[in-house]
């Protein structure tokens, strides 16, 4: 059921190209892909960042075994209407997560997809194919609820990262759906580079306190505190991920997990599996390369580079580099930002904005 991609413009005259770290001294960690952004990210004499240095000092990285994952699942298996709610974006990671939950862990999952107006049709197609082939129940939720917030964030030139309030919103939504459909686990397709696995047993592991995110998190909180006053629909919108989690836990004590934290397979292996078994495919375009993110993500990434010299994808890729999943060269290649201005304009047009709003 592939449809025309509404945001792809062809024949654009200009291309926006931003190098990681540009405007911020331009020094990139020689071990990962993070730029030096003082005070939170600093490079030593060898050009290695403090985060890589901390990682190297660890005696051993924490172990997350598949048997641990099964242990957690089995405690609540068969005691609820659904064994888990799987957040499916149609990307490789979440589609593989759905596949593993159904076939490998023999769960009865509920697939859940939301569209805030910027999801790509071929990503949604991926989800539909997967749920049909796997025979799992599926809830699709489409809304314009977040549009005004996105618009305000861009128009105000806030340095908040668009993806941050969005993730607060969709996690809130996921908890509500898990409660509504009685699912004890929320399964995300987070990779080994995303979120904080250490908190796996207690919460979804929001990572705003990590040094790589600190500056971004503060700006997000500032935006949510200061810029939503004229928008009454967001009166109760949680101002931080912690607030959202605290509220959500009072309503429904779901545990958030990702099978990818516990499996030894890298994306090259599970992409093969879902291609063969679910007919999954990459979307025509996405940032970073080899991802399947929403179209607004192009704007979010662009603005992050503009404001910080890196994006949260650089943080994720850096973790993957440290854990040996991805080579530094491959990461830099995937993260290279070369955006067609007419495409950016097409996305912004959905919010009644134009590229002038992001310069």
């Amino acid at each position: 059921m592939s449809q025309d991609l509404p945001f792809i413009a062809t024949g654009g005259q200009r291309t926006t190209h931003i190098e990681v770290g540009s405007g911020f001294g331009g020094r990139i960690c020689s071990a990962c892909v993070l730029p030096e952004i003082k005070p939170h990210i600093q490079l030593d004499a060898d050009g290695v960042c403090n985060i890589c240095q901390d990682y190297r000092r660890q005696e051993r990285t924490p172990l997350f075994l598949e048997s641990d994952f099964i242990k957690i699942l089995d405690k609540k298996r068969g005691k609820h209407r659904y064994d888990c709610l799987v957040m499916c974006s149609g990307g490789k990671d979440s589609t593989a997560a759905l596949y593993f939950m159904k076939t490998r862990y023999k769960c009865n999952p509920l697939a859940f997809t939301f569209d805030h107006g910027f999801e790509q049709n071929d990503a949604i197609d991926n989800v539909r194919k997967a749920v049909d082939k796997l025979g799992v129940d599926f809830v699709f939720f489409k809304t314009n609820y977040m549009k005004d917030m996105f618009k305000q964030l861009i128009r105000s030139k806030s340095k908040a990262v668009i993806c941050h309030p969005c993730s607060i919103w969709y996690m809130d939504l996921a908890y509500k759906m898990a409660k509504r459909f009685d699912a004890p686990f929320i399964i995300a397709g987070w990779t080994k580079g995303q979120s904080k696995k250490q908190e796996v047993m207690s919460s979804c592991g929001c990572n705003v306190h990590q040094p790589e995110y600190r500056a971004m998190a503060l700006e997000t909180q500032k935006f949510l505190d200061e810029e939503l006053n004229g928008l009454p629909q967001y009166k109760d919108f949680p101002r931080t991920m912690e607030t959202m989690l605290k509220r959500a836990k009072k309503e429904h004590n779901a545990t958030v997990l990702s099978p990818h934290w516990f499996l030894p397979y890298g994306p090259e292996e599970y992409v093969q599996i879902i291609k063969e078994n679910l007919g999954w495919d990459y979307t025509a375009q996405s940032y970073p390369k080899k991802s399947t993110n929403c179209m607004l993500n192009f704007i979010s990434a662009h603005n992050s580079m503009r404001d910080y010299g890196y994006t949260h994808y650089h943080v994720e890729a850096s973790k993957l580099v440290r854990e040996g999943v991805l080579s530094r060269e491959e990461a830099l290649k995937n993260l290279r930002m070369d955006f067609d201005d007419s495409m950016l304009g097409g996305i912004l047009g959905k919010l009644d904005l134009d590229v002038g709003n992001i310069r």
Partner: protein
Amino acid sequence: MTVLGLSCYYHDASAAIIRDGIVVAAVQEERFDRERYSPVFPIQAVNFCLQQAGITIYDIDEVAFYEKMYLKFERTILAHVIGYPFTFNNFVETMPLWLKDRLAVSFAVREELSFKKPVLYVKHHLSHAASAFLVSPFERAAILTVDGVGEYACATWGVGNGTDIQIKKEQHYPHSLGLLYSIVTAFLGFHVFTGEGKVMALAEFGEPDHLDHFKKIIDLKDDGSFRLDTRYFSFNRGAKMHNEKFEELFGAPRGPGEPMTDRHHNIAASLQRMTEEIVLRMARHVHKATGERYLCLAGGVSLNVTANSRIRSEGQFEDLYIQPAAGDAGAALGAAAYVYHTVGGNPRVQPMTTCALGPEFSNHSVEVLLRNRRAKFQKLDRAALVAETARRIAANQVVGWFKGRSEFGPRALGNRSILANPADPTMRDRLNLAIKKREGFRPFGASVLLEHVSDYFEFEGDSPYMLLVANIRPDKLGSIPAVTHVNNTSRIQTLTSERDGVYYELVREFYAQTGLPMILNTSFNRDEPIVNTPAEALKCFDESGIDCLVINDYVVDKATR
């Protein structure tokens, strides 16, 4: 049917999976937790085995454990009661281990693995017997198992026929050859588990002039059964298992780091001769009692290559099958095989033709590692890689060789190996002292093309797992000094194209370049478990005097690091 086999809580904790008649995975926990002979519940090994099989615990039909723990506990309690009050301290020290782990296997399997069915327990020596016979190529065979101790048995013999194993006789604790070897190993100042091989090597430097002393403490019968004179030992009284009376006979024990003297060499030589004599008598008796043409061996004592070779050269049996993971690691596999047949009623599993049953790593993951560690590397196709590696070995370079799946059991057989030129007269010292950081007297084995084994060794036939030694032919003495032990023997691994693939091709290429149909092969490690991952291989390479590292299709040169 899919069966998971487990062994743990003493040493060599391991997991193995048999699925629809095939041994799909087997590995020791030490490869993951990096503790030599790790005894812990093999949680990482289990996770690997399941993932290698492409399944989860939900797909496992039965879990088999390699020992009957309550029977072993009964023996332990009885021994402590009999030895009271001298055993009291040891009792207090060891009871927590029993209560926390050893008697709680079912609990651990349920809690750690989420396996809901009851665990099936197979007797220790039956597990060993199954590990030797059920995966062997023989339809019928005699079976001999000798080790430290299981529940009560320290040695057994029996007969395997099809999927059936009948244990005919057991020798019970404390009359144990394995324990005796370990006691003398400790007496000679070595660590138990890591030191037995050293004692075996040391034995060839001495004269067996303490044989009479051993005969005094061992009442050996014609059938190989024996009784230890327990007045010379102090079982269940702590770490030291010999006593003053033993020292009156053999002299003072060697302390750690004390110099090695002729007396120590001679005690080692005497122990080794006694061991060979016992094992030979057992094998002769088993042959006479069973009339079988083939013999299967397992248990820790079956890692004694000299004893194995003497059984072979006596010639009663037409052929031997020695489980490559002869120690307790292999018992996990044996327990799985036994349950697969007895509970499942399945036909025989396919013979185990390789011990490459552990983890392997993709070229992608290797390249990611090398790039992220800024290693300069070359990626070569198979033929070029083989030619380049052979050239380097011929030029007396030491090569770390990491290919395919890691080996199950204690031997590196060309998948996680350090390779070198056997003709280089300086190589043994270089490897022992500068690279492996171990005693200079320890010999190295050779991987030799099967079709050329008789050119250099007084040996015909197959030795796929380096569990046999052979005399070097007199006309070849001096030509392979790096793999020549003091008694002019060498531990040998024979290679075939079908079984050993690229490793065979490497040795064949080395033969083409040098005229020598063999390569020195030692395990890829330095006082640690054999390397398991590319990262561990790279670390070992960086920290040692290895000249060149070959990981999958990649070659890294020390000069460029």
